[in-house]
């Protein structure tokens, strides 16, 4: 229990290291977009770490950043084509933030600092660790933002073409909440600031 808590909140790439914030802030207007983005990043992270680790002996240090960027952008392009074909609404909802996964600091960061120096299996394990941390962070933030901003939890709507049914839970609807503020960009910044602050307070209180 303790280990899981530490893993999720003390070593989280988003809450603690503050990496990859662009997508965390941009696509989290619904819970569905948040967790699908998390899954996409997790898949790309695992694949890119695997490939980078496999070719680590052939790439010398001077050209490694361009090489890694090509690997990552190839993977992103594959995902883009697949999403465009099989789940168009989700592809449209992500917009420019889907190609922007290429410059997500978490993926390039793990490739440079871990996968380029380690064997394949540890690299895959490392990718899962960071990727799941990112997935939990973005889903949690998306959940808060959608509940406070539109009073619903969208579990399946855009991806209903793939799964076959829609699933949206209504949480509450009164005069104070939902408040559109939390869906706007300012609200996203404030909510993320508060969330990180609260997590810091919990982490500090444990010591």
């Amino acid at each position: 229990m303790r280990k899981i808590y530490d893993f999720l909140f003390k070593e989280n790439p988003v809450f603690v290291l503050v990496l990859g914030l662009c997508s965390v802030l941009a696509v989290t207007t619904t819970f569905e977009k948040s967790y699908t983005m998390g899954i996409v990043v997790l898949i790309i992270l695992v694949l890119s770490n695997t490939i980078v680790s496999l070719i680590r002996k052939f790439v010398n240090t001077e050209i490694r950043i361009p090489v890694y960027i090509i690997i990552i952008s190839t993977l992103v392009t594959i995902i883009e084509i697949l999403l465009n074909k099989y789940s168009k609404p989700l592809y449209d909802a992500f917009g420019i933030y889907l190609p922007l996964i290429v410059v997500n600091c978490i993926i390039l960061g793990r490739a440079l600092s871990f996968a380029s120096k380690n064997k394949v299996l540890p690299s895959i394990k490392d990718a899962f660790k960071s990727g799941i941390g990112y997935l939990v962070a973005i889903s949690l933030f998306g959940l808060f933002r959608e509940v406070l901003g539109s009073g619903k939890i969208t579990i399946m709507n855009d991806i209903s073409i793939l799964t076959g049914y829609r699933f949206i839970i209504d949480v509450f609807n009164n005069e104070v909440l939902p408040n559109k503020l939390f869906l706007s960009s300012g609200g996203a910044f404030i909510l993320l600031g508060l969330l990180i602050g609260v997590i810091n307070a919990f982490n500090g209180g444990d010591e």
Partner: protein
Amino acid sequence: MFEIFLTALIVENVILTKFLGICSFLGTSNKEKNALGMGISVTVVVLISTILTYLINKYILIPTSSTYLQTITFILVIACFVQIIELIIKKYFKNLYDSLGIYLPLITTNCAVFGIILTNIKMDYDLITAIVNSLGSCLGFILVIYIFSLLREKIENNDILKSFKGIPISLITAGIMALIFERLI
């Protein structure tokens, strides 16, 4: 045209409403000088890569119907271009390199650069409009990062909760700025 410029500058500010370039925004905005340095480097890279990517997209990718290669091509253009700029500045403008040099490698992975270029392509802007949009977005980037660096020096000296120091309070300040910017026009 002027409308596009103003929209890019304030209403759809790259940092505050499109959330691009947050890493460099939080990382380099602790000092006035760093903020301006980063802003100017980003502007130069964005303007020139806007022109390059526009030409590549129009004369190579669209005629050969290989627009699915956009992501790879654009990021390569940016990465190569940043390397070239770094070499040129290092060779001929030593003073400038000493003050801007450290930001240049960071620009490749700055989402603002890639994001602005992708927006230009997605919106099907022609060359002039694309340049105007890029210029507006970059000036918006400089404006926000500069104001924020001034605010941040003040905030650091204030009495705030320990767990909110640093990133959390910066994010909340940015949020308040975003709310103001949205209502400006």
